[in-house]
């Protein structure tokens, strides 16, 4: 029942003419079933998965976390580990079934014919070995190079992946390199033995957007010039759109759709694909409507499915979907979809969520005094005044002279990459860190001083929701206990009343009140983040700092949480400081946006203004790095930035080391002037405003919208 109507869907090559003979696939995965077993039972991570990658083709394997995509990648590398087992199926590489090879034979292929790059460059390199040695290892192992030959080749490889001083990088230890450089070093390692197939497991997810843009660009070029095939595992459809020719969509360990990238992303056939595409946060001016989201959580199977796996979350589900599992249906072009209604649903989009309580942004603009006022905030970490002269340290500047306000009921977005100081700003606003200079006024009172004097009320009124929803909850405490604590601290004595409050808060964030008795590990990532939000709301705050609050979540869930946050703001009149690296996410929720770089504000303004020219050169680069789908309009050329780290605390412009429009010495030596306009837009740059305004819009489709 699980098998396709044809044994294998005949997939004609995308590029070649129909008459050309079809090249044999380089990687052909058939009927792959993988399960994880432990004492509590077995979990099917992949069920009857099949796909093929032809020579020179990059295939995207997409799905939410838990969909089984990484498991499949690891199975191909024979690195499953952790109780994972391939139950059945074939993994044909160049015609040989890898499963029939002995372990040493498979190991010999790894790193030689099949190379891999993993998600997190910061932890993929061994901290105790030089980068050069790590790149040389496979050369010595598989190609029999002498260490000296290998060293020479390492330099070439590093140059090839765009590292300008390969000699220095080869001699460096990993922690001396930036994330982008580390990922380049890993790519160089993978390329060393001239493999035929690359397994790329979320290779850019841990990187900053501007760095990600460059790495994707590099990977695309390398695959092209070396005629490499690649399996590109990703949850990010925008990135997949840039680099993959074909896409395989996974859900609950099953392939639910396959086809050429352009077609799948512009006209998704399977309801799940429709949902994924719809939930992707796009750049929009203003928060007109709620983001579409996919309710519920990923299905977990323990055996062959008895119904359509997606039925519990599918808006188009009907009785027939629940009575039998779905087979893969293949159309004339060879595209597959695992949904019997796919043809009937062609052209029908994922349903929009009801507009709900979207408020008119104009009316909400606060006229009264701002809730939070930040004045010349400065924070230096690690300054050390020792009597021993060689221990004295000036410290690292995290935030350099930042001023802004947050109005009542206003959402201010702070966008920046790692090292921009955005999290430090958030912590200073919650009095979790003391400013080195400058003041933070909360409702007119000096926050730092008041908190130091033991003012618990100010603490109560400002709360934090942060990124890692798993780490922020104690695994040994039930959700109810975790939420009870802030209430006790707030002096609510009556246990019965507190219990009611907790139940009310859970309902408020869309969770059943029975969740109070659950433990964090029993919840999904999205549910945990809802608990975190509920806990932040427990003390009835006015102001919530959301530090990358949705960054670790899948797009479908991310949309969900964003909608919840927007709702809460409208109903409770909350103000947010919404800190994120993702400018697309910010455009959905923020009234105003601050773009920060190297501890300074480069640009600030109403969201609609920041998304349109004139741009600060950094904002322009950030916007151009936002991945887009074909239907969103023409891709504008991306602005690729250097890998250099920001240099906060210097004399000139913090962005000078990477700025593509740098004017020259003036940018290094003098702090840029701030251009201000009447509508509250300010840009700090030596380039005159009029010249900045001449640049073309990154999102021409926004041009027509009237700025509010």
């Amino acid at each position, binding site marked *: 029942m699980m098998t396709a109507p044809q044994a294998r869907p005949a997939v004609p090559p995308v590029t070649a003419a129909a008459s050309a003979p079809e090249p044999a696939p380089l990687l052909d995965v058939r009927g792959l079933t993988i399960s994880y077993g432990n004492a509590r039972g077995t979990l099917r991570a992949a069920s009857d998965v099949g796909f093929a990658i032809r020579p020179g083709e990059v295939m995207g394997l997409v799905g939410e976390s838990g969909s089984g995509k990484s498991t499949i990648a690891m199975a191909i*590398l024979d*690195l499953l*580990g952790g109780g994972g087992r391939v139950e059945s199926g074939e993994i044909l590489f160049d015609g040989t079934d890898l499963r029939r090879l002995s372990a040493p034979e498979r*190991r*010999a*292929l*790894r*790193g*030689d014919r099949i*190379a*891999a790059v*993993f998600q*997190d460059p910061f*932890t*993929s*390199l*061994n*901290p*105790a*070995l030089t980068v050069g040695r790590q790149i040389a*290892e*496979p050369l010595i*192992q*598989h190609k029999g190079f002498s260490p000296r030959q290998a060293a020479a080749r390492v330099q070439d490889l590093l140059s090839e992946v765009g590292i300008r001083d390969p000699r220095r990088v080869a001699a460096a*230890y990993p*922690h*001396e390199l930036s994330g982008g450089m580390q990922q380049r070093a*890993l790519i160089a*390692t993978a390329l060393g033995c001239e493999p035929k197939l690359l*397994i790329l497991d979320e290779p850019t997810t841990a990187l900053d957007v501007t760095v990600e843009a460059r790495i994707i660009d590099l990977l695309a070029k390398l695959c092209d010039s070396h005629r490499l095939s690649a399996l590109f595992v990703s949850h990010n459809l925008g990135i997949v759109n840039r680099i993959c020719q074909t896409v395989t969509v996974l859900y609950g360990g099953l392939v639910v759709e396959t086809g050429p990238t352009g077609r799948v992303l512009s006209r998704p056939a399977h309801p799940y694909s429709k949902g994924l595409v719809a939930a992707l946060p796009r750049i929009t001016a203003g928060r007109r409507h709620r983001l579409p989201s996919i309710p519920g959580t990923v299905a977990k199977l323990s055996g062959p499915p008895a119904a359509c796996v997606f039925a519990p979350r599918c808006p188009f589900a009907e009785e027939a979907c629940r009575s039998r599992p779905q087979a893969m249906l293949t159309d004339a072009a060879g595209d597959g979809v695992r949904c019997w209604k796919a043809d009937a649903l062609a052209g029908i989009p994922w349903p929009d969520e009801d507009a709900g309580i979207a408020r008119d942004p104009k009316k909400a603009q606060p006229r009264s005094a701002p809730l939070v006022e930040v004045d010349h905030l400065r924070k230096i970490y690690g300054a050390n005044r020792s009597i*021993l002269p*060689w*221990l004295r*340290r000036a410290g690292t500047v995290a935030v350099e002279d930042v001023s802004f306000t947050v109005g009542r009921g206003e959402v201010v977005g702070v966008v920046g990459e790692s090292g921009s100081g955005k999290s430090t700003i958030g912590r200073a606003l919650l009095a979790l860190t003391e400013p080195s200079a400058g003041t933070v006024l909360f409702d007119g009172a000096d926050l730092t001083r008041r908190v130091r004097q033991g003012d618990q009320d100010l603490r109560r009124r400002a709360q934090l929701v942060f990124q890692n929803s798993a780490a922020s909850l104690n695994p040994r405490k039930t959700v109810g206990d975790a939420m009870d604590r802030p209430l006790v601290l707030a002096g609510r004595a009556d246990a019965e009343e507190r219990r009611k409050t907790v139940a009310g808060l859970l309902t408020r964030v869309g969770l059943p009140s029975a969740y109070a008795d659950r433990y964090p590990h029993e919840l999904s990532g999205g549910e945990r983040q809802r608990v975190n939000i509920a806990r932040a709301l427990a003390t009835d705050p006015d102001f919530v700092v959301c530090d990358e609050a949705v960054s670790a979540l899948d797009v479908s869930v991310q949309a969900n949480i964003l909608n919840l946050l927007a709702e809460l703001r409208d109903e409770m009149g909350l103000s947010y400081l919404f800190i994120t690296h993702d400018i697309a996410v910010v455009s959905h929720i923020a009234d105003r946006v601050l773009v920060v770089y190297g501890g300074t504000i480069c640009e600030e303004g109403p969201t609609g203004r920041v998304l349109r020219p004139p741009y600060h050169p950094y904002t322009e680069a950030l916007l151009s790095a936002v991945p887009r789908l074909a239907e969103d309009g023409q891709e504008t050329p991306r602005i690729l930035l250097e890998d250099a780290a920001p240099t906060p605390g210097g004399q000139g412009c913090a962005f000078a080391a990477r700025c593509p429009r740098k004017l020259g010495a003036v940018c290094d030596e003098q702090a840029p002037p701030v251009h201000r306009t009447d509508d509250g837009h300010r840009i700090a740059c030596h380039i005159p405003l009029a010249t900045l305004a001449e640049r073309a819009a990154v999102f021409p489709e926004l041009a027509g919208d009237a700025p509010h």
Partner: protein
Amino acid sequence: MLAYTLTRLVYLALVLAVMSVLIFLVTQAMPGDVASMIAGQFASKEVVDAIAVKLGLDQPLIVQYGQWAAGILRGDLGRSLVLEQPIAPILMEALARSLVLAVVALAVVAVVGIGLGVLAAVRRGKLTDQLVSGVSYLGIAVPDFFWAIVLVLIFGSYMKLLPTGGYAPLSDGFLPWASHLVLPVVTLVLMLLARIARLTRSSMIDVLQTNYVKFARAKGMPESVVILRHALKNALLPTITVLAIDFGLILGGVVVIETIFSYPGMGRLLLFAIQRHDLPLIQATILVVSAAYCLANLTADLLYAYVNPKIRHGMKAA
């Protein structure tokens, strides 16, 4: 690295200075009067006072400390009251013997302990692991002297294979010298082995789960390279620290062990000095032991920094 070493040396000097004050004060506060002990039970008060003046005991404490500390800085540890000899040569001899014991025991612990730990980690959950872990628990649960007694009984008294105590200088030949070392070394090893093995096992298990180990496997490195080159070097960091502390402990003369085996090291010397109330000898011994302990720790920190490039470079930048 240089700046770091310098800083650490400055700290070391400070710590030792503070230690010397403490040692001096505490030993001075011990019951008994040095002068009357030297003079003997039946000496007249005048004789005792004369001795006290000669030794400078009539001076204020701070002056006495100053003289003592100045002597140490000149390399003069004073004279033993009981042995009526300069302390330095006696102490150096005992220190050398204890060092031999410590170095040999430590070397065995390091090699065997790390080896067992790695083995247990690699075979995690299998029989080897369970054996190593089980025996380790036993090693930790049983008190130190138990092994000593058991060993003495089996090898010394029962099988008469090895000397049960004492010491033979190397000049008597290698075999007699070595045979006297075996039992104390084995006892020390048994004491320390379990902790090192367990520590290495757990840090090795952590490291084996890291991404860089996964990536090394993805590069097709043979398992031996993955374990020895990629995992072990990182897993050893905590082990090194503990080994250094152990070294200090052994040097401090695991008094029990040296006593059981009548091994004439620092521990026994200290015990002797305390029993005889030989104040200068007590002070000098404790000071040397403290210094050795601090030096062992410093060595560990430097070694740690050397193995861990992150610290090494952090120091360069400082």
